[in-house]
């Protein structure tokens, strides 16, 4: 799961500015574990995204377009130990509650063998994805918090998942696209 989240994030990394964007989630500051625990924090600036977009724009213009629509990504991976496990589980729970309270749609829920995965989407009125947030408690090893902010069209998400062979991302895109199409179909009827 961590690999998938990291891969998704790595493909769509960007750095946020000081102001809070519509799809931005404030996870708060994380402290590195005291012992030998893992701590990874990634914030890649928009300039690098633009660079990545330029790299693929000739071969895959759709992916380049998607990359250019990303405004911010933050990924935190924190190793769990006896000291921080309870606090991080509590924080993950609070973030989930906050997201649900703020109108984010929970589109992926996976709980198996100690893993607790939640993926949320923030949709704009016009159907575009304003933000994607993932909260993962990976058993007793890691906690992952990821946030992608941009103005992403659902079909772009599905396309990215398809191009990169990331089925979960493709499913998210398809699901979102179907949801967006439903009101249109009803209106036509």
């Amino acid at each position: 799961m961590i690999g998938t989240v990291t891969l998704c994030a790595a493909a769509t990394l960007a750095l946020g500015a000081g102001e809070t964007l519509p799809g931005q989630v404030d996870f708060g500051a994380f402290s590195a574990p005291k012992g030998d625990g893992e701590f990874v924090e990634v914030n890649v600036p928009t300039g690098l995204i633009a660079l990545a977009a330029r790299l693929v724009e000739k071969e895959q213009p759709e992916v380049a377009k998607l990359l250019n629509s990303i405004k911010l990504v933050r990924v935190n991976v924190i190793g769990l130990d006896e000291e921080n496990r309870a606090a991080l589980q509590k924080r993950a729970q609070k973030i989930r509650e906050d997201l649900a309270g703020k109108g984010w749609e929970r589109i992926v829920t996976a709980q198996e063998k100690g893993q607790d995965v939640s993926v949320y989407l923030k949709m704009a009125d016009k159907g575009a994805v304003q933000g994607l947030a993932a909260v993962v408690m990976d058993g007793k090893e890691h906690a992952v918090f990821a946030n992608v902010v941009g103005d992403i069209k659902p079909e772009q998400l599905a396309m990215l998942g398809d191009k990169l062979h990331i089925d979960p991302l493709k499913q998210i895109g398809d699901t979102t696209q179907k949801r967006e199409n439903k009101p249109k179909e009803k209106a036509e009827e």
Partner: protein
Amino acid sequence: MECAMPMSPSRVPPLPPQLASNSAVPDGRIPPATSAAVSSRPRFRVRTGYVVLALVLCLPLLCAVGIAGYFRLSSATEALRSSVIESVPGQWDKRFAVHVGGLTLGLVRFGSLFFNLPPEPKAALETLHGAEVGVYKLHDAPSALDYSAMFTAADKCMRRRGWERVVGVAQGRQFVAVYMPRNLRTVKRMACCVAVLNEQDLVVASARGNLEPLLALATQRLQGHDLSLGDVRRRVPKTELDRCQ
């Protein structure tokens, strides 16, 4: 040739004593060219002399400053180094620090024009506009490292200088922090500052340059390849999320 304009004796400025005593110059008639040469030549000689003297005196000083610059880190890199060193208790030894600036690299670029270099090193030379690296060693291994404090201290001093951390990794005895300028707008003026602490060794490095030539080369090379991650993906085992679903 004499001056044709008649001048009244009352309007003539007083002559210097050495000229006044010169019998070749008639009273009240001063050749303009001679007057200018007499008044400006000594002054000009003095100024030139001073400039030459100042240059002769300053040249060794400028050379010394220039040479010392090769062994001094820039302020941002120095600040990052200080923040990490201050966060890790113990005695640090400087192994070496090298700074190659824009002037030196510009000269190297100019020199490379006379050689037929392969495209890769040529692009690398065109890309790099400045680079520096410093290596430091801690005498004794610290008992415990507070990575949070290290990140906080480094972030604080770098943010003050307009740098933002883009990557932070801490695991075991390893610590990595990568910073980039906050107002990064174009690949033409990229900069990056890195601190890596591995056990007792600290490396701080920084580079700045124009990524356009390297990007152009990479794009050119990638054009013949399939950028899809399909092949990579097929080699990677199924992820945990895949298994969950």
